[in-house]
């Protein structure tokens, strides 16, 4: 039996503002989200934003998300954390904006460990990068905390600050990692 299984993939045949994975099975130990995307926003690089849900309901829109990151932005490096927000901002992969070559799609991988454990707040670890040929290439290592011990059964991924679209050709895949 495979340890890593594909739970769902969304490939955009047309621009879309929101990608949601719902009814995520509780049968895996960890989740891994892989994103290749581009946003319709006049920028070289743009962060994805992510919300989580539990209990079969909608995603949590409260200010319960925290994140930290280390980044390289062209020749500038930096790091920092976000105060409580209504979504994960600085962990979501940095993807390409529409100010760079249309063929450029940024990518990222996010591990969400022990997502189904109702005794733990949900935490995540990510790495992403984009726009390697542009003026402002980004690379980002991110850490996320959702202050909620509910088992995660829904993930929503939106464009920067929950505004605008992901463009056609963007792809979002969710994998489950088993523990036996």
């Amino acid at each position: 039996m495979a340890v890593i299984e594909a739970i769902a993939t969304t490939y955009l045949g047309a621009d879309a503002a929101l990608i949601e994975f719902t009814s995520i099975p509780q049968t895996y130990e960890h989740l891994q989200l892989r994103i290749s995307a581009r946003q319709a926003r006049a920028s070289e690089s743009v962060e994805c934003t992510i919300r989580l849900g539990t209990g079969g309901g909608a995603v949590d829109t409260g200010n319960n998300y925290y994140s930290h990151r280390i980044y390289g932005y062209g020749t500038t490096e930096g790091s920092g954390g976000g105060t409580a927000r209504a979504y994960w901002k600085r962990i979501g992969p940095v993807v390409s904006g529409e100010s760079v070559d249309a063929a450029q799609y940024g990518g990222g991988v996010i591990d969400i460990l022990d997502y189904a454990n109702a005794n733990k707040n949900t935490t995540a670890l990510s790495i992403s990068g984009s726009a390697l040929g542009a003026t402002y290439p980004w690379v980002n290592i991110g850490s996320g905390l959702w202050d909620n011990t509910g088992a995660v059964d829904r993930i929503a991924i939106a464009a920067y600050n929950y505004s605008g679209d992901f463009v056609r050709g963007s792809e979002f895949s969710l994998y489950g990692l088993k523990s036996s």
Partner: protein
Amino acid sequence: MAAWSVIQHDELATTTSSWSKTGIPTDGTYDHLCLKWSMRTNRSPTKYDEMGLWLNNDTGSNYSYTLLGANSATPVSYNGSSLAMAGYFRVPATASLADTFGSATIWIPNYANSTNYTQMIVSNTWPNNSTTDNEWYLQTHACMWNDTAAVDEIMVHDANSTYDMVQYSSITLYGIKGA
């Protein structure tokens, strides 16, 4: 054969001082190892603890590392050698936000070869609901064990051997097989 296999998975039922896996196959069953943990310790009254990792039960000064990390607006990079562990991987402790566990992924490529020193690539986080300096941490390490032996044992515990991993901490060791 599946590319990934679970060699060992443990979720701690109670506070536990140490985790280890012995008898890791070195006969070509796997090409690489990957360890993932979700970890918190009972170190008190601090906000964080540091974990260590040892290969083949070697506690000699045979480990070195290069680190990129941040706990403020300024990332730092430094290195060290002749250390008695791979580690100082920060995880939440008693004074961090309750119910919050740190995540780590540790890759050990080509672990079974007996010609080269063993390299490890580590991504690790101490998440917290704070933006204050030194109340969170994010790091990526390149670690090396200066020994050519094939790795058949991994041990993890508090770097000071003083505190315990708390209930619900989990560790999963995967073996990855090439084609």
